């Protein structure tokens, strides 16, 4: 029965994808991309991958839609001109599709115990997590401790992406200094809409609290730094949408955001260096406390905090970079 649901959702996914490609109005394409993200997250959920579904929901359906809309506000809304040479593209896509379909004939069945992904390292992680790290969520254990280097790389990728976006989008701000002055625009935002403003302002602290819950609950259930960073950024973006970007910049100025962006990655690296200073290897959590398991817990909490801080900072910096270039 669950398979029937999965097939149904995947069919809707194909229809949405075709519609996104076909439509000429970019605004409709952005809305359909939001629906695509929701469908994908429901699929991940049916496959029992809760952490991935949470991340897809928070970042794909929420933050991406807001950023796309911010970009749309700066450009036109219709697709401009059809490219003439579509036959070559169609040919390449058809050949690639046939190759991929041929490759799926050799795929192991879903959940097969003899599949390659269930040999080698996978069972070792699942077996050793209660003994070495002792937290219920093995995804966080693999992400934070067994594969800590990879996550360090991910945090630095997010950091670099943030720097890249800021570099590209603030290039013109020197030519238009009046648009970056927050006190010049008092009370923008949805000021004609009383009910959404009141309800939204009521909800922001709860969204914040839920973001903190997801951050620190990553050891025990789905959650962790990436999801929590997206949720907290969504709370601040909601405030910026309701009260105007100037107010949001007054609440969390750009300097604080830049410190957040760099500080998270620094925290991660600092935990690694602290491991070295205390006698172990780089990113060795066993030496952080007297008991190795307590050290693992402390290490995972600290690095997840670092990840969450960097993701919040980067998402908010990108949002403000888009919003400041608009003709608000």
């Amino acid at each position, binding site marked *: 029965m669950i398979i029937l649901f999965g097939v149904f959702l995947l069919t809707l996914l194909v229809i949405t994808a075709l519609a996104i490609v076909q439509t000429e109005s970019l605004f409709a394409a952005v809305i359909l991309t939001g629906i695509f993200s929701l469908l994908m997250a429901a699929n991940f*959920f049916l496959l029992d991958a809760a952490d991935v579904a949470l991340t897809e929901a928070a970042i794909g359906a929420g933050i991406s839609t807001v950023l796309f809309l911010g970009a749309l506000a700066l450009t036109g809304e219709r697709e401009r001109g059809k490219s003439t040479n579509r036959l070559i593209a169609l040919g390449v896509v058809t050949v690639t599709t046939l190759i991929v379909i041929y490759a799926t004939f050799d795929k192991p069945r879903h959940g097969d115990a003899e599949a390659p992904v269930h040999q080698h390292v996978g069972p070792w992680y699942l077996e050793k997590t209660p003994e070495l790290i002792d937290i219920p969520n093995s995804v966080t254990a693999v992400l934070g401790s067994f594969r800590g280097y990879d996550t360090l790389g991910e945090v630095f990728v997010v950091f670099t992406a943030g720097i890249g976006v800021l570099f590209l989008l603030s290039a013109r701000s020197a030519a238009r200094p009046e648009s970056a002055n927050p006190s010049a625009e008092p009370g923008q935002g949805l000021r004609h809409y009383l009910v959404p403003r009141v309800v939204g302002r009521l909800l922001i602290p709860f969204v914040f609290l839920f973001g903190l819950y997801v951050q620190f609950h990553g050891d025990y259930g789905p959650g962790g730094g990436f999801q929590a960073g997206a949720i907290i950024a*969504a709370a601040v973006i909601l405030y910026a949408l309701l009260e105007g970007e100037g107010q949001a910049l007054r609440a969390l100025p750009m300097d604080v955001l830049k410190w957040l962006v760099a500080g998270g990655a620094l925290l991660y690296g600092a935990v690694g260096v602290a491991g070295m200073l205390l006698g172990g290897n780089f990113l060795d959590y066993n030496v952080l406390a007297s008991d190795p398991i307590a050290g693992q817990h402390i290490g995972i909490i600290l690095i997840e905090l670092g990840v969450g801080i960097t993701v919040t900072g980067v998402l908010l910096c990108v949002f403000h970079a888009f919003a400041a270039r608009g003709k608000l």
Partner: protein
Amino acid sequence: MYYAVTLATLVTMALALVRALLGPSIYDRILAVNMFGTKTVLFLSVVAFLFGRPDFLDLALVYAMINFIGVIAVLEFIRVRAENDISEKGAGS
């Protein structure tokens, strides 16, 4: 019984998708996305209960929040676009 409710929710998601594809004005599409979001929340709650995993309910809560923030973002976009159109017409003429 849970399967029947889940099937009804999935069919409604498909109907909302059709409305999002058809809807002549922007507001029809926003309405369809909002409905899609709440139906996804209900779908996730029922299936999380079916699977017997209460910690999956955090997902449903996140979706509800994201749905609301998404609708507010779209409305802000429409307002900004309307203001830009007015200011462009005023500056151009």
